[in-house]
């Protein structure tokens, strides 16, 4: 999960392939895209929907991918990012974020419940951040992307990415 998107993306390509190995893409990239959109939206159901859209769009547009311009995972995350932006443009703000803000800080002993609880609270805090910060946090911790990969996806400089992420995490820490 924490492996570098930028470095591992080449493994989805066969030796002399002109298209990615979609089984490899699926296994390797689905968790990253799903968690990017999960962190980004704060809503697991919505994240599933947006992830499906991302993979379908990537598949349909695969002929537009240019290997000489970007790593496949970077290209895929750009699509995921655009899918999320498109969704926000057309959808009303969904309630779960507001509901999550009231989620208890302490969950049940079960791991899943803890994760859900932490995620709910974390999502509520992330939702308060500027949109750009949310995007970067989702790329960093959801997609497991390096600052360099995030810079490629967002168009920001690598150092700027690092600075924004540092401040965003500091803000979250203060609010936690």
């Amino acid at each position: 999960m924490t492996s570098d998107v930028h470095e591992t993306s080449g493994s989805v390509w066969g030796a002399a392939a002109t298209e990615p190995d979609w089984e490899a893409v699926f296994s390797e990239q689905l968790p990253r895209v799903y968690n990017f959109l999960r962190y980004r939206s704060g809503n697991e159901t919505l994240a599933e929907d947006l992830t499906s859209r991302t993979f379908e769009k990537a598949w349909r547009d695969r002929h537009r991918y240019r290997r000489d311009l970007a790593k496949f995972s970077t290209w895929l995350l750009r699509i995921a990012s655009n899918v999320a932006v498109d969704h926000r443009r057309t959808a009303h703000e969904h309630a779960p974020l507001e509901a999550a803000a009231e989620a208890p800080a302490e969950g049940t002993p079960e791991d899943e419940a803890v994760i859900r609880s932490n995620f709910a609270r974390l999502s509520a805090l992330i939702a308060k951040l500027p949109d750009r910060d949310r995007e970067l946090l989702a790329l960093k911790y959801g997609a497991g992307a390096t600052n360099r990969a995030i810079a490629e996806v967002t168009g920001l400089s690598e150092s700027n990415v690092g600075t924004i992420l540092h401040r965003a995490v500091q803000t979250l820490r203060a609010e936690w």
Partner: protein
Amino acid sequence: MDDDFMLSAWRKPPADFARQVRDRLHRLDSEAASVHGFKPISRLAASLAALVLVLGAFTFPQVQAGARAFLDLFRIVNFAPVLVQSERFSALMERQDLDLPRMLGEQVEVLKAPRAPQTVADAAAAGIAAGIQVRIPTWRPVGLEPQLIEVSADQTLRFTASTAKLKRVLDAFGIDDLSLPDGIDGQSATVHVPAIVRINYRSQDHDVMLLQARQPQVSFPAGIDLASLAEIGLRVLGMKPGEAHRFAQNVDWRTTLIVPVPADVSMFRQVDVQGNPGLLIQTVRRSSRGVLPKESRVLWSSGDSVFALVGNVWPTELFEMAQSVR
């Protein structure tokens, strides 16, 4: 709070969800395989309007000696794609000594000119304007919504044969082993193109157009040897002599519409649309990355109506739309 905490909320996608996405991608993958498995052929005229022009082109060599014409002899049941070399026609159309556009234009008389398309509020209004029961797809790709419904008025054209000009066309194509039937000179074929309903669908990335109309009515002289005339037409379209002869002899020319399509840019396959023979065509474009999909088309007829779906969605999606038209 540190990176570990930020990552602690990370979780694997639910297995059911992962399986659903995987299944969907596999389905898309198999759809792509079927597209890549198409026979290389042609690009078809762009719409039902273009289809009518194709019909006109098809009926032109059918004009034959004989006095009595009757309506509805020709009825579109089957679609037969024929590969054509587009550069062959481009070169011919540009030949100054032949002036083919003018020459052919002189043989076409507009008996009833079409009016500008009329925008209507809904399918019911379109049906009233066109005099048909308008059908619509009950399934559409996600996001694709109806945007515009237009109805174009009917029109009638008459084609008159000139053996001298047809001979010049045959000569221009270098066809010297076929002769024109006797008595064809001055005979006419009339094509009535009914009103056409066009429904445009649009999403952020895709445009699809559904066209529907009654069967065109074609009248031409009785007692003609359609197969012999069709063979001439097939040769003009670029088919090789032996193939054109076999094709012409094995096709029912009273129920088959020839669809000329450029051989260098498209792929096609014949399909079954709600129990009716149809034709699915994908136009492609060539780039440094190879042959890439561009646009898909499905043509089919049902009862007394003819349909065409044209759009930049995947051919399987367009086909699914066609199957859902009710």
